[in-house]
């Protein structure tokens, strides 16, 4: 079976600095893959390459068997890829409903309807309400995004990505800035939402090893731009050297 996402010998250089070097990974349908590694290991760079935000210096990225070179985020979004950013991204002056609605409009292919009233579109509002319900935002539909709490902003960011009904979703540290106590709740919501939305694969960048251990089918550890390990959780956590590199080197965020 073709992997949903695959990289072949991908590198990203900034001048002489190799942020990523010769990365070959694959993620298949049905997988929950975590990407771990110390700060500066290249995790965000990898997500940016996988989602077409960055162009690799060498190598290729494939999405559903197609090279994504030159495809662009909009086409990837309509073909079934969604992502969130490490720093929470919102539309400050849009309400929760409008934020989710923007993605629903894309998914339903209605973006060129210039004269039809958005509010009268039952299919859009029904889907918005459904997505908001999954993320516990149903009471906040009419609230401006910038007035939400930090945690709600995170949820909304993810909710709008889910509203694309993607096949694969890439989450770059979705629990950063969330208290340790809340992290499990947030992850539960995310994974539940992914199931409800029929997402085929999740790629998660995460520092919290507890979360990584409880949800992943496979863990990819990056260190200084290279793949240090690409293992199922049992094998991963059985190797103290890897854990040392991933966790030991971490100093704050």
């Amino acid at each position: 079976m073709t992997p949903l996402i695959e990289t072949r010998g991908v590198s990203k250089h900034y001048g002489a600095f190799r942020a990523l070097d010769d990365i070959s990974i694959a993620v298949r349908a049905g997988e929950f893959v975590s990407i771990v590694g110390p700060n500066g290991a290249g995790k965000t760079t990898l997500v940016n390459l996988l989602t077409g935000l960055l162009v690799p210096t060498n190598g290729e990225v494939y999405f559903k068997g197609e090279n994504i070179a030159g495809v662009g985020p909009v086409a990837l979004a309509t073909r079934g890829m969604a992502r969130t950013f490490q720093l929470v991204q919102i539309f400050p002056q849009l309400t929760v409903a409008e934020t989710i609605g923007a993605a629903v409009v894309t998914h339903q292919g209605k973006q060129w309807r210039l004269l039809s009233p958005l509010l009268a579109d039952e299919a859009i509002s029904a889907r918005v309400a459904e997505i908001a319900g999954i993320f516990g935002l149903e009471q906040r539909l009419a609230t401006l995004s910038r007035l939400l709490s930090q945690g709600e902003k995170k949820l909304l960011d993810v909710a709008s990505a889910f509203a694309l009904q993607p096949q694969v979703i890439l989450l770059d540290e979705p629990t950063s800035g969330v208290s340790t106590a809340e992290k499990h709740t947030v992850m539960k919501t995310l994974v539940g939402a992914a199931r409800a939305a029929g997402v085929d694969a999740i790629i998660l960048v995460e520092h919290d090893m507890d979360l990584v251990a409880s949800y992943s089918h496979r863990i990819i550890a990056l260190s200084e731009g290279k793949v240090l390990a690409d293992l199922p959780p049992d094998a991963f956590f059985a190797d103290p050297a890897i854990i040392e590199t991933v966790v030991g080197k971490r100093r704050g965020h």
Partner: protein
Amino acid sequence: MRRAPSVILIVAAVVALGLVPVLAPPFYANLLVPFYGYAIALLGFNLLFGYGGLLSFGHAMFLGLGAYGAAVIAGVWGIKEFEIVLIGAALAGLVVALPLGWLVVRYTGIFFGMLTLAFGMLTHSVLFKFYHLTGGDSGMRVPRMRLLGLEFAAYNKIELMAGPFYYYCLALMLIAAFLMWRIVHSPFGLHLRSLRDNAQKALYLGVRVHQFRLAAFVISAIYGAIGGAILGFRTGLADPELVYWTHSGHLVFMTVLGGFSSFLGPIIGALALTLLQDQLQSYTQYWRFVLGAILALVVIFLPRGLAGLAADVGSFLSSPRRRPGPVQLPEHSQPGVLGPGLRRDDVA
């Protein structure tokens, strides 16, 4: 429910505008004709600015395009049907804005502003220099035209302006406003606002950032050209002053004065400035100075413009407990723009 008072207000305003030629001397109706031209142009301008987040400092070039278009179609070609002139102006706006927009919407913020400014100045110098085609600084005459095929031969120019043409422009503005209302409240309008707020996130939600900016640019150009055709008919002249950068600044001024974050703001700004300028000019030769001071005060004290002020006063007066103290900001800081979100009743 929530919208009822504003609907009543709008109907009242339209009735009041409709009564101007009946109740006031022709001077006032004649004075308001340019207001309609500006109001239409600014509805388009604010699709780009208020909803798309792109502030053009060269938008007067499209007004000029409409006025020169009228001069060419009616004056040079002798087609004196104003409807054909309007369609011609709209097409000219479309044809010019497509390639120009394709280039400039790749830039945002100050770069977009500077690029549009540059193209506006370029247009100005072209009009100025090509004397044999454009009449240089004396411009081109825009002849009197027929409205809906009617000559109105019994009316002199002032009577035409203060009567039939006044109502023609009022109707045109209402149609333009209705269409724009539909546009900003459509799925397209939502995508446009999302890319204004955060283009990167919008891209990843499948928003075609460049295409939508281009569409907004083209629509705003069409509105500008139609407004310009009205201005040209009113003054009987298309001259380079119309596209001069100060005129573009004038458009920005009206929009900020009225409030770019509300749908009706630009119309209110156009009306306020038209009346204000008339009054100030009759009082003092330093009217530009006073206007500048007013703009500064508006930016500092009324960032949401007159429309924002009106909304605050309205919500203060209609709040059940009218206790003194700071006016409560509504949760939606942009009532006209954002609406109440998707309907709450849709939530089971």
